[in-house]
C-alpha cells in the first residue's frame, strides 16, 4: 500500500450544548492512503459527518469543539493550523461533496461562475485560461456540450447533472483527498451508478484518496478498499473490504449486514437490531452497543472495549472477540 495521506489519531469532538456535552466523536482513529477509498459506515447520528467536518475544521462554532487527538494530513497536524492556513487547504487539497445536489449549488449564479470560484481563490489564472479550465472540468464530469452549459443556472439541470457539477467544483483544484458525504443518496439508481463510476475514474486519474461516508454497505462493496464502521461516536470495526464482508467480527457489523435485503439470495427474515442508539449526552458505562447487542455478556456492561488488531489490518472493538 502507498503511504499514509491522512491519519486521524484519537480524535475527540464534542458538541457543547445547553443540554450538556454531547460526545459526537469519541476517540476515533483511522488513516487513508494515497489512491485509496475508505468507507465510513454508520447510521444517522453516529458521528461520521462530524468526523469529516473536524478534518476540515468546519465545525459549527462555538458548539462543536475538537477537544483532543491529532489530524495529520501529509505529515502536518491540521489542528495546529490557523484559520487562514486552513482556507488554503480546503477546496485545494481536501474537498468535500455533500449529500443534496439541490441545495449544494447557489441558485443565483451560473454553473460556470460556481466552478470558477474555488479555482480563482487558489490559483492565478487569466480569463481565457479560467474558461478553458472550467470547460475541462465539465468535460471531466461528463457534461455534454460544456461550452453551452457554462452559462446555465442550476435550476435548468436535473439532480444527477447537478451532483456532477458539485463534483466538478470539488475536483477543480485537483485535491489530494475528497470527502464524499453520502453523495448518491438523493439520486436514482442508474444515475447513482453513473456517478459512482465517474468518481472512481477520476480517482484513478488524479491519484486521489477518498473518504466515502455512507450508510449503505452496497456502496461500500462497490467502491471502497477499506471500511471503518462507526457506532455512537466510536469506530467499532475496521478492515479491508473483503475481509470485513467475509468475516465481520463486531456484532453491530454483523447485524447491519444481516439487516440488508440481498438480491442474490432469498431470505425469509432480516436480522434486526432492537432498540435505539444511545443518547450521546448520557452514555452508559461499558460498551455503547451493549444494550442492543445480541451477544452481550456481563462484562460488556461495565468495561469499555478498546480497538485491537485481530489479524493484519482488521481491528475490532469488542470484548467478546478479544
Amino acid at each position, binding site marked *: 500500500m502507498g503511504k499514509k495521506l491522512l491519519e486521524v489519531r484519537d480524535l475527540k469532538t464534542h*458538541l457543547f*450544548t*445547553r443540554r450538556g456535552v454531547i460526545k459526537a466523536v469519541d476517540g476515533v482513529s483511522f488513516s487513508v492512503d494515497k489512491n485509496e477509498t475508505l468507507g465510513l459506515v454508520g447510521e444517522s447520528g453516529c458521528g461520521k459527518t462530524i468526523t469529516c467536518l473536524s478534518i476540515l475544521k468546519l465545525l*459549527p462554532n462555538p*458548539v*462543536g469543539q475538537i477537544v483532543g487527538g491529532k489530524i495529520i494530513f501529509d505529515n502536518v497536524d491540521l489542528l495546529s493550523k490557523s484559520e487562514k492556513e486552513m482556507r488554503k487547504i480546503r477546496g485545494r487539497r481536501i474537498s468535500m461533496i455533500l449529500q443534496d445536489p439541490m441545495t449544494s449549488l447557489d441558485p443565483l449564479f451560473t454553473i460556470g461562475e460556481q466552478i470558477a470560484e474555488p479555482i480563482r481563490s487558489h490559483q492565478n489564472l487569466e480569463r481565457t485560461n479560467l474558461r478553458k479550465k472550467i470547460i475541462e472540468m465539465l468535460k471531466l464530469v461528463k457534461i455534454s456540450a460544456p461550452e453551452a452549459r457554462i452559462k446555465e443556472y442550476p435550476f435548468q439541470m436535473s439532480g444527477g447533472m447537478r451532483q456532477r457539477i458539485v463534483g466538478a467544483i470539488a475536483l477543480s483544484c485537483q485535491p489530494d483527498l475528497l470527502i464524499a458525504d453520502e453523495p448518491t443518496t438523493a439520486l436514482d439508481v442508474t444515475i447513482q451508478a453513473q456517478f459512482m463510476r465517474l468518481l472512481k475514474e477520476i480517482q484513478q486519474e488524479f491519484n486521489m484518496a477518498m473518504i466515502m461516508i455512507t450508510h449503505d454497505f452496497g456502496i461500500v462493496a462497490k467502491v471502497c478498499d477499506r471500511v471503518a464502521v462507526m457506532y455512537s461516536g466510536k469506530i467499532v470495526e475496521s478492515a479491508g473490504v473483503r475481509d470485513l464482508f467475509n468475516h465481520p467480527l463486531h456484532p453491530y457489523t454483523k447485524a447491519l449486514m444481516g439487516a440488508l435485503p440481498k438480491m442474490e439470495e432469498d431470505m425469509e427474515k432480516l436480522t434486526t437490531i432492537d432498540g435505539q442508539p444511545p443518547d450521546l449526552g448520557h452514555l452508559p458505562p461499558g460498551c455503547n452497543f451493549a444494550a442492543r447487542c445480541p451477544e452481550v455478556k456481563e462484562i460488556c456492561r461495565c468495561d469499555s472495549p478498546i480497538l485491537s488488531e485481530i489479524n493484519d489490518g482488521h481491528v475490532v472493538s469488542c470484548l467478546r472477540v478479544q
Partner: protein
Amino acid sequence: MVFNSITQMRRMPIFSVLFLVIFLICGIFGSSLAPLDPTDGDLSRSLIPPFQDRNYPLGTDHLGRDILSRIICGARISMIVCIMVIFFAGSIGTVLALLSGYIGGKVDIIIMRIVDTMLSIPYMMIAIALAAILRPSLFNIIILLSILGWTGYARVIRGEVLRIKDSDFVKLAKIDGCSKTRILIHHIFPNIVNTLVILATLQVGAVIIIESSLSFLGLGVPPPAPSWGGMLADSRSYISNWWLSTFPGLTIMATVLSCNLLGEWLRLQMDPQFRQK
C-alpha cells in the same frame, strides 16, 4: 439539523416576562394599586419634578396629578384594547385565512385581494379618518384597530395553511374519508395555533403604539381617563418639564419591547423543527 436547533436555543427573556406580568397586574387591579387617584388633580402641587416629593415619586403633571398613579391606571386601557383587538382581529384573520388557504380558488383570490387592498392604505391615515367619523371612545378604538389588524394574521396563517395542506397527514386524512370541516378543525387548526400565539404576542406591541399614537393625536380614549398616549399628548406644551413625557414614553417602550422579545423567543421555541428534536 442538529446545529440549528442548538445555536437557536435561547434563554427565556425573564425581564420581559416579569415586566408583562406587572403590566397585567396593573391592568387588572390598576385603581386599587395606584397610591393616589389618577384623575384627582391639585393645582397647587402641579409640575413637581420626580424623586423630590415622597408622595409623588415620579412627579406630577400640569394639573398636579400623580404621574406614577396615572401610568399604573393607564395600563388598564392599553390592556383592554390589546386583548379585545387581538381577539377580534385574530378571529377574523384566522377564519378567513383557513377558508382562503384550504378552499383556494376564487375564495382565496377574493380574500387575498381584500388583504392586499387593506395593506396598501396607509395605516395612520385610515385610522385618523375613521376615528374622526366614529368619535373617539374605547369601543370605537377597538373596532378600528380590529378592522386594521386582521390582515396580518390572514396573510401569515394562509401561508401556514397552504404548507400544512400539502403534508402527508392531511393526505392520509383525506384517504380515510375525513370531511373538509374535520380536516380544518382537527388537522389544520391545531397546527397553526403556534403561529397564532406568536402573531398575537407581536401584535400587542403594535396595538399599544397605535393606541398611544391615536391618543397622542387626540383621537384616542377621551380624557380625563388616564392613558399612556394621552399623557404624552398632554406633555407637548411642557417640553421643559421632561418627566411628563419621559415616564409614559419609557413605559410604552418597555412594554412593546418586552412583547416583541417574548414573541421572538416563542417563535424559536415553537419552531416545529426545533420541537421534533
